[in-house]
């Protein structure tokens, strides 16, 4: 194994350790939920989804509605976590914090600041497997829906797109 690869492995290990050692949870990475907050063991939540693009800071999406390993929660259309998009747009990739199979995904946008009207969300990407799509310019709420494979469930994430 060459030096560069060895360093990469060490870096990933360090990053995993950073996460595993418990940086304080933020608003966008809620702790595992418990259906019974009075003593039931915590129930699992879907992985965190992180939106990345060249020249931008990775941003974890707000978790909306999901079903996951026999549990689930219903949320409305959310405002989303702010993301500054370059004036020329950008090719975004979204990565999940767990290696789950992705049966399908689709990304939609609607004008920011309110609930979308009937027929208003516009699809900007869809596929199976790796998640990548062009971020539009302007002020939008981005909804990403992911259907996990193997009957694990599904999850929806939101970001608020704005101009850089």
């Amino acid at each position, binding site marked *: 194994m060459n030096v560069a690869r060895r360093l990469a492995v060490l870096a990933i290990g360090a990053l995993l350790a950073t996460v595993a050692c418990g940086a304080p949870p933020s608003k966008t990475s809620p702790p595992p939920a418990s259906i019974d907050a009075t003593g039931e063991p915590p*129930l699992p939540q879907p992985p965190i*989804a992180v939106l990345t693009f060249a020249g931008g800071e990775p941003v974890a999406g707000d978790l*909306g509605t999901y079903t996951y390993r026999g549990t689930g929660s219903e949320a409305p259309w959310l405002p989303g976590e702010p993301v500054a998009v370059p004036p020329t747009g950008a090719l975004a990739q979204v990565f999940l914090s767990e290696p789950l199979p992705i049966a399908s995904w689709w990304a939609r946008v609607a004008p920011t600041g309110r609930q979308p009207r009937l027929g208003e969300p516009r699809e900007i990407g869809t596929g199976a497997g790796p998640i990548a799509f062009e971020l539009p310019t302007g002020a939008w709420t981005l909804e990403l829906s992911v259907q996990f494979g193997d009957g694990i469930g*599904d999850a929806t994430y939101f970001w608020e797109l704005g101009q850089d």
Partner: protein
Amino acid sequence: MNGPRRRALAGTVLFAAAVAGAVPAAAHGPDPVFSGPLFAQNQELRFRWKAGQEPPAAMQLAINGGAGDANISRNSRAATFTFDPAGTSWINYGLDVGCGVNGLACFSRVNAPTSFTMSFRENGHRFDWGILRWCEMTGRPDGCFDARNSALDEFGHVEILTHHVNFADQSDYTDAVVQTIQRVKPQDGYDAHVLGRCDVASLQRKYDMPNMASKYSTCLDLRTNLTLSGPDWVTYGANVPFTATLTVIDLDAYERLGGNPVSARTVTIQRRLPGAATWSSVGAMVAAAAAGTYTFTAPSQTTTYEWRAVFSKPAGEGLRGDTSPIVSVTVSSCRTAPCPQSAQPDLR
């Protein structure tokens, strides 16, 4: 989120993506389902209010309404839901119901097939996205969420369903109650109180039909198989009995529906002269005692015909039509005078 944590997450997810596998994308159709265990067919699940976290009366009414809606509209042998103060499943309401940061309502079926839990956030809860208004508790202003619809959605999840995959334009939203984004008043479907056809389709596949005469959801498109049996040969002037059998083709993808006999449908019988191009309908076959079986007796046959049974695709049901293979019934020549001109006795 701070910079190092974001980068850490990005690194983690890059690694995760590298080892994740891809499977084919889902398309519009029956709701996706969990991989977990089912409840027993028609299992009665009894639920209670969790002590100290009982919903207010209006919410109890809405939740019980949703349970009743699920029972009535499941059109399958899915589990049923009944309120019982001694029930093993529980439902709660309040501030600390554990539905996640943004959740209005949530559920767990991890204890299936024994029990489930369900939770509803309290009316007036302040989220980052706004204030929760349950219609049943606020006089139904625009922007409220219909709790009975929410409950029906959650009961659908408890059965086995995950969220319906809509068309991009959401034109099929009302095909399912088990939706990713619950609509608010006055959006179309916000107060749906029956399971949608694509919810029912998955319940039928997983739990089977209530009975063999029940209608298959139009969100399904099941192939059928129609067979016809009858005698190869009859004497001149005899009655000819036919029996047809209609079933759903037994495919793995159809799960519990595969191989089902299909009763109480319209099956017709047709005939033609041997080798003729056109068929003529003779009549409707009659439902027999055995499920999926139909009979017809052609009286006083004097001519050799080819016969077939036909099941035309029914309107308002998710079954395809089918036509049986041909049965040729030879009518022997007349041997006892007087015979008609066309069937003179062979006296050689």
